[in-house]
C-alpha cells in the first residue's frame, strides 16, 4: 500500500471512530452535567472538601472557585517537585530547580503542558503520578467545567446561577475522564506502552555498550495525556518515544483519544441547549477547519522538494519511520488543532508551510475542535462575534440561541477575541527585539522567527508543543512564556464566565422566521470565514515573515 493510501485509510478510520463515539459520549456528558444525583464516591469528596453539592454558584463565585483551585494546584505541584527527593518513588531524582518547577507547575495546571524539562531524567514516579498525572485530570476537568458553565449560560434563562464548579469538576473526573482513561490505558498497554514502577533497567546492546531503559507508569499517564488534551509526555521525546508510542496504530489511537472529547462536546452543547442542530453547526465548523488543516499539512509534507526528501518519498526529517509521513502530519495537525501539544514528530523539521499550518491551527485560538472545554467555549465566543457581525444583516438586533448580543456581551466577546492574539504578538515582538530573547535563537532568518512565534503561540493558546530549535529553558523564556501561559488560560476564562453570567440572566427571544438561523450550512460557512478572517488575518503579517517567507 502506498503511503498516501495508508494515510487516507488512517484518516477514514479515525473519522469513522469519532463519528461512532461522538453521539453516545456527547449525550453521556450532557447527562453527567444535568442530573442531580450524586455518586457515593463523589459525595465523599464533597464532604471532604465541605462543598454543598446541591447549591449553585453565580459567575463570580464560579470564577473564584476556578482560580482558587488553580492557584492551589500550582503551589502544590511546585512544592511536590521541590521536595521529591525526600519522598518515596523519587527514583533518586533531585529537587527540580525553581525556574523549571514553576514553569512546569503553571504549565500543567493550565492544561498547557509545555515541557521545559526532560521527564525521564527530572521527574520521579511520585511527581509523575501524584503531580503531573493528577493535573492532567483536573486541568482538563476544569476546562470542561468552564465550558459547561458557558453552555448553561446559553441554555438557562433569567437566573444568576451557572452550576457548581466543584460538582462539575468532580463529575468530569469521576464520570468522564477516569473511565475513559482506564479503557485507554488498557488499550495502550495492549499496544506495547510500558506500565510499571521500575526505576529503569540497564541492558547491554549488541554492540557491547550498556544502555539505560527508563521504565515507569507510562500507559496510565499517556491515556489522560491525550484524553485531557494535555500533551505532557512521560518521556522527553513524548509520543515519538518507543515506550510511549510503540507502533503506528497506537499513535493513531492516541490521535483518536485526543480528538475524542473535544469533538463530542458540541453534541453535549446541542443537548443542553435543547437543539441538536446548534451542536451540529458548531461541530461542522470544527470539522471543516480540522479537515482543511489535516489535508494541508499532509500535502505540504508529502510534496516537499529536495533530493533527499524525494528519495524518502516525503519530508521525513524529524519524523519516525514507523509512523511515516501521513500519520506524523495527522498527529501534528491534531495536536495543534486541540490544545494537546503532544508530538510524535518534530514540528521544527516540518516543511515551512506545513509548519505554518500547524502554527495557524493554534493561532485560530485552538477551536477546531480545541482543548477539552476550552475549544468549545472559544468557538462559542467566535459564534457570538460571527452572529453579531452578520446577524444585523437580517434586520434585527443580533441574537445567538435567543440571547441578545448587546453592549456588555460584545465588550466581553471583543476582549476575549483580543486577549490571546495580544499575548502572542507582544510576546513575540519583545522576544525578538531584546538580546535576552535573541540569544536563545538557534536558527536565523524566517525559521528563527517561526520558532519564537511558535513558542508564544503555543504558550498563549495553552498548547504546549514546541517548535524546538529555541533554547526556551532560560530565565527570560521561562518567565515570559510562563506569563503567556497563565494569562492565556485565565484571561479568557474570566471573560467567558462573565459572558455566561450575562447570558444566563437574560430571557430568551422567540424563534421566528425573522430569527437569524444559526444551524444551517450557511452559518457554518460564515463562522468558518469569520474565524479565518477576524482571527487568522491578524497573524498574516507575522506568518508572512516566518513560514511564508521561508516556504513560498
Amino acid at each position: 500500500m502506498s503511503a498516501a493510501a495508508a494515510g487516507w485509510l488512517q484518516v477514514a478510520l479515525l473519522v469513522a471512530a469519532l463519528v461512532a463515539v461522538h453521539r453516545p459520549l456527547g449525550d453521556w456528558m450532557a447527562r453527567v452535567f444535568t442530573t442531580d444525583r450524586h455518586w457515593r464516591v463523589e459525595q465523599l469528596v464533597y464532604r471532604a472538601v465541605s462543598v454543598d453539592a446541591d447549591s449553585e454558584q453565580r459567575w463570580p463565585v464560579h470564577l473564584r472557585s476556578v482560580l482558587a483551585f488553580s492557584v492551589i494546584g500550582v503551589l502544590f505541584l511546585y512544592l511536590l517537585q521541590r521536595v521529591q527527593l525526600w519522598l518515596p518513588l523519587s527514583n533518586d531524582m533531585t529537587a527540580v530547580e525553581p525556574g523549571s518547577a514553576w514553569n512546569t507547575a503553571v504549565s500543567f495546571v493550565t492544561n498547557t503542558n509545555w515541557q521545559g524539562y526532560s521527564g525521564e531524567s527530572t521527574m520521579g514516579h511520585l511527581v509523575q503520578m501524584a503531580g503531573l498525572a493528577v493535573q492532567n485530570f483536573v486541568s482538563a476537568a476544569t476546562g470542561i467545567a468552564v465550558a459547561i458553565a458557558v453552555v448553561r449560560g446559553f441554555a438557562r434563562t433569567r437566573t444568576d446561577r451557572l452550576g457548581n464548579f466543584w460538582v462539575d469538576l468532580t463529575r468530569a473526573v469521576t464520570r468522564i475522564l477516569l473511565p475513559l482513561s482506564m479503557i485507554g490505558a488498557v488499550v495502550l498497554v495492549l499496544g506495547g506502552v510500558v506500565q510499571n514502577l521500575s526505576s529503569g533497567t540497564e541492558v547491554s546492546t549488541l554492540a557491547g555498550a550498556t544502555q539505560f531503559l527508563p521504565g515507569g507508569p507510562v500507559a496510565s499517564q499517556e491515556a489522560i495525556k491525550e484524553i485531557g488534551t494535555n500533551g505532557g509526555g512521560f518521556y522527553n521525546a513524548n509520543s515519538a518515544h518507543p515506550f510511549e508510542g510503540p507502533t503506528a496504530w497506537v499513535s493513531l489511537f492516541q490521535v483518536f483519544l485526543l480528538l475524542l472529547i473535544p469533538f463530542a462536546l458540541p453534541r453535549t452543547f446541542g443537548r443542553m441547549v435543547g437543539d441538536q442542530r446548534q451542536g451540529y453547526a458548531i461541530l461542522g465548523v470544527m470539522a471543516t477547519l480540522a479537515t482543511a488543516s489535516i489535508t494541508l499539512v499532509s500535502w505540504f509534507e508529502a510534496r516537499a522538494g529536495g533530493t533527499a526528501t524525494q528519495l524518502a518519498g516525503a519530508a521525513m526529517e524529524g519524523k519516525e519511520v514507523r509512523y511515516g509521513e501521513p500519520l506524523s502530519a495527522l498527529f501534528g495537525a491534531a495536536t495543534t488543532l486541540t490544545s494537546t501539544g503532544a508530538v510524535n514528530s518534530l514540528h521544527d523539521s516540518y516543511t515551512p508551510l506545513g509548519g505554518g499550518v500547524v502554527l495557524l491551527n493554534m493561532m485560530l485560538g485552538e477551536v477546531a475542535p480545541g482543548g477539552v472545554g476550552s475549544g468549545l467555549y472559544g468557538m462559542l465566543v467566535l459564534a457570538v462575534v460571527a452572529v453579531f457581525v452578520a446577524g444585523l444583516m437580517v434586520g434585527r438586533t443580533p441574537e445567538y440561541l435567543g440571547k441578545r448580543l448587546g453592549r456588555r456581551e460584545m465588550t466581553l466577546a471583543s476582549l476575549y477575541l483580543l486577549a490571546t492574539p495580544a499575548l502572542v504578538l507582544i510576546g513575540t515582538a519583545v522576544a525578538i527585539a531584546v538580546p535576552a530573547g535573541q540569544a536563545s535563537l538557534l536558527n536565523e532568518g524566517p525559521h528563527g522567527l517561526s520558532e519564537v512565534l511558535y513558542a508564544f503561540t503555543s504558550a498563549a493558546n495553552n498548547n504546549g508543543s514546541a517548535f524546538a530549535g529555541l533554547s526556551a529553558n532560560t530565565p527570560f523564556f521561562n518567565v515570559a512564556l510562563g506569563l503567556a501561559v497563565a494569562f492565556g488560560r485565565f484571561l479568557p476564562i474570566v471573560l467567558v464566565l462573565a459572558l455566561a453570567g450575562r447570558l444566563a440572566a437574560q430571557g430568551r427571544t422567540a424563534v421566528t422566521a425573522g430569527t437569524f438561523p444559526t444551524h444551517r450550512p450557511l452559518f457554518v460557512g460564515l463562522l468558518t470565514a469569520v474565524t479565518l478572517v477576524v482571527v487568522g488575518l491578524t497573524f498574516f503579517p507575522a506568518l508572512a515573515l516566518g513560514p511564508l517567507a521561508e516556504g513560498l
Partner: protein
Amino acid sequence: MTSTTGPVPASTLSLLSAGQLGPAVAGAVRKLDPRGLVRQPVILVVWVGSVFSTVLAVLDPTLFGWLIAGWLWLTVLFANLAEAVAEGRGKAQAATLRKARTTTVAHLLDGREVPAAGLQPGDTVVVVAGQVIPGDGDVVEGIASVDESAITGESAPVIRESGGDRSAVTGGTTVLSDRIVVRITSRPGETFVDRMIALVEGAARQKTPNEIALNILLSSLTVVFLLAVVTLQPLAIYSGARQDTAVLIALVVCLIPTTIGALLSAIGIAGMDRLVQRNVLAMSGRAVEAAGDVGTLLLDKTGTITLGNRQATEFLPVGGADEKELADAAQLASIADATPEGRSVVVLAKTAYGLRERSDLPGARFVAFTAQTRMSGVDLPDGRQLRKGAAAAVTGWVRAQGGTVAPEVGQVVDAIAGSGGTPLALAACDDAGARVLGVIHLKDVVKEGMRGRFDQLRRMGIRTVMITGDNERTARAIADEAGVDDVLAEATPEDKLALIRREQDGGRLVAMTGDGTNDAPAMAQADVGVAMNTGTTAAKEAGNMVDLDSNPTKLIEIVEIGKQLLITRGSLTTFSIANDLAKYFAILPAMFAGAFPTLDALNVMRLSSPQSAILSAVVFNALIIVALVPLALRGVRYTPASASAMLRRNLLVYGAGGAVLPFVGIKLIDLLVSLLPGIA
C-alpha cells in the same frame, strides 16, 4: 413653511444636492477637531495616523510621503463628510420647523399677558380664532377648529375640544374658529416643536444600544490590528526589512474597519431621517432599532385593518318578499340615515339593483334612531311604514303592529352574525300588514392589500394581533378574512396590557399604535408605541414615536425602516471586514518582497511597485467611504423576506462582494497611480 408642504421638503430626499454639499464640506472640515472624533475611535486612529504621517512628510519630504499623508487626511475628511451630509439634511428640516415655533404672547385666563416662552406647566391660556396656540397643552374648555399644518403638513383643519380623546393641542398651531381655554402641559424649551427640532438636527442624538455594541467590536478590531502592525516592526527589523513608519501607518489605516467606522453615525442619522420623511417622529434612536426587532404587532381593527365602518354587502329577503322590493324598501328607510352604514345601504341598492337614489321624499316622516328603540325608519305619505334596525327590535315592532315574523328570519340573522357580519332587519307595515321583508348584511370591509401585507410580515417572522371591541365571533371572522395571526376580542385596556406582557415574556418585542388616554399604559409597556398626532397628550407621552399623519397602518413601515437601518449597518460592517483580505495582499508583498523575493507570490494583483501598491490601497480605502455614502444614507435595498433569504443575499453581496471588489478597485487605482512619476 406653507401649509401645503409637510415638514420635510421634498428636496431633502435627493442625497447630495449642490446646495448642501458646500455646508457639508465646511462641516466635515470643522469636524477635524479631534475632540469630536473621540466618539468614533476608528476615525480617531486615522486622525492620529494622519498627523504622524504629515510630520514624517515634513521631516523627510518625498512625493510618496506627502501622498500618503494627503490621502489619510482625505480619509478622515470623507468620514466626516458622511456625517455632515446626514446632519445637513436634518438641519434644513429644523430650519423650517423653527419658523413654526411660536413667539407670540400668551393670554392667561386671569387676564395677564406673558411671552409664550415663559409659560409653565399648569398655566391656563385663552386662545381665540386667528391666534397661535402658545404651547402644548390640553383643551379644558370649549371647542375649536385648529390648523395644524405647521406640524403635520396637513392643511385640513382638525377639531379640538375639551374632554375625550381630541383635547390635545400643539404649540405653534393656529386656532381658526371659536375660543378655547388650554392648560399648558410642557415646560419652556421642551415643547413638541422643540423636541422635533432637536431630533431632526441630531443635537439630541445619542448612540443606540446596538450602535454602541458595534462600536465596541470595531474598537477591539482596531486594537488588534494596531497591535499586529506595531509588533510587526520588531519582526521586520529582525528579518532585515525595517519599514518606514509611513508605510506602517498606511497598513494600520487600511486594516482597521474605517469604512463602517466612517459611516456608522451617518447610517444612524439617516435612519431617523427616513422616519421623519414619513412624518414619524421617534423620540429616541433606541425606538427605531427596537422597531426592527419587533416580533408582534398589535393592530387596531378599525382604521388599520378594516375601512373605518361596516358596509352593506347583501340584501336577503325573507317570507316571500322579492329582492328588489327589499332593496327599494331598504333604500327608502336609509335616506335620512347619515351614518356610513346607512349611506352604504343606499349605495348598495343603487349599484346592485340600479335603484336611483332619491334625495327627498315630500310628506315623509323620518324616524330617527334612538338607543331605546334601536330602530330608524320612515313613514311614507301613503301610510306605509318602514323600520330598520337590530333584529330583536324590528321583530318586536312587527309583532306590536299585529304582524307575524317568518321563522326563517332567525336563521338568516344567525347565519350573518355567525359569519362575523352585522344583521339589520327591515320590516314594513302597510295594507298587507306588518311583516319582515328581509335582512341587510352589514360587513366590515378589510382594506385592500392587507392580506398580502400580513403574509409578508409572517414571512419576516412578525406576528400580527388584531385588537377590537367586537365580540369573539365577529372578530375571528374578520381576522380570518384579513389574514392576521390572532385576535384580541372585546379588548379592554387591561387586556391589551396583559397581552403585551405575555408576548414580551415569550421573548417578543411588541409594537402598537394608540391615541386614547386609555391606551397610555399599554403604549408605555410596548417596546414601540406609536402615538397618533390626533391623540391625547397622555398617549403621546407614553409612546416613543408620534405619527404626524395619524395613520395606524404606518406601523408596518416603521418596522421596515428599523430593519433597514440594522441591515445597512450589518452589511457595511461585513463589507468593511471582508475588504481586509485584498489590502493584505496589496501591502504585505509591497513591504517584504524586497527582503524575501518569494513573498512576491502574494502580489496576486501584480501591482506595479511597492509604493504604488501601498498608495493604491490607501486611496481605495478613502474612496470607498465616499462611494458608500449614498448607500449609507439611503439604506441598503430591503425586500421583506425570511431571515435566511436575507442573510444569503446580503452575505453574497456584501461579504463575498466585499472580499472581491477591493482586488479589482486596488488594481485599477494602481494602474492610474503607477503613471505618477516617482511612484512606479
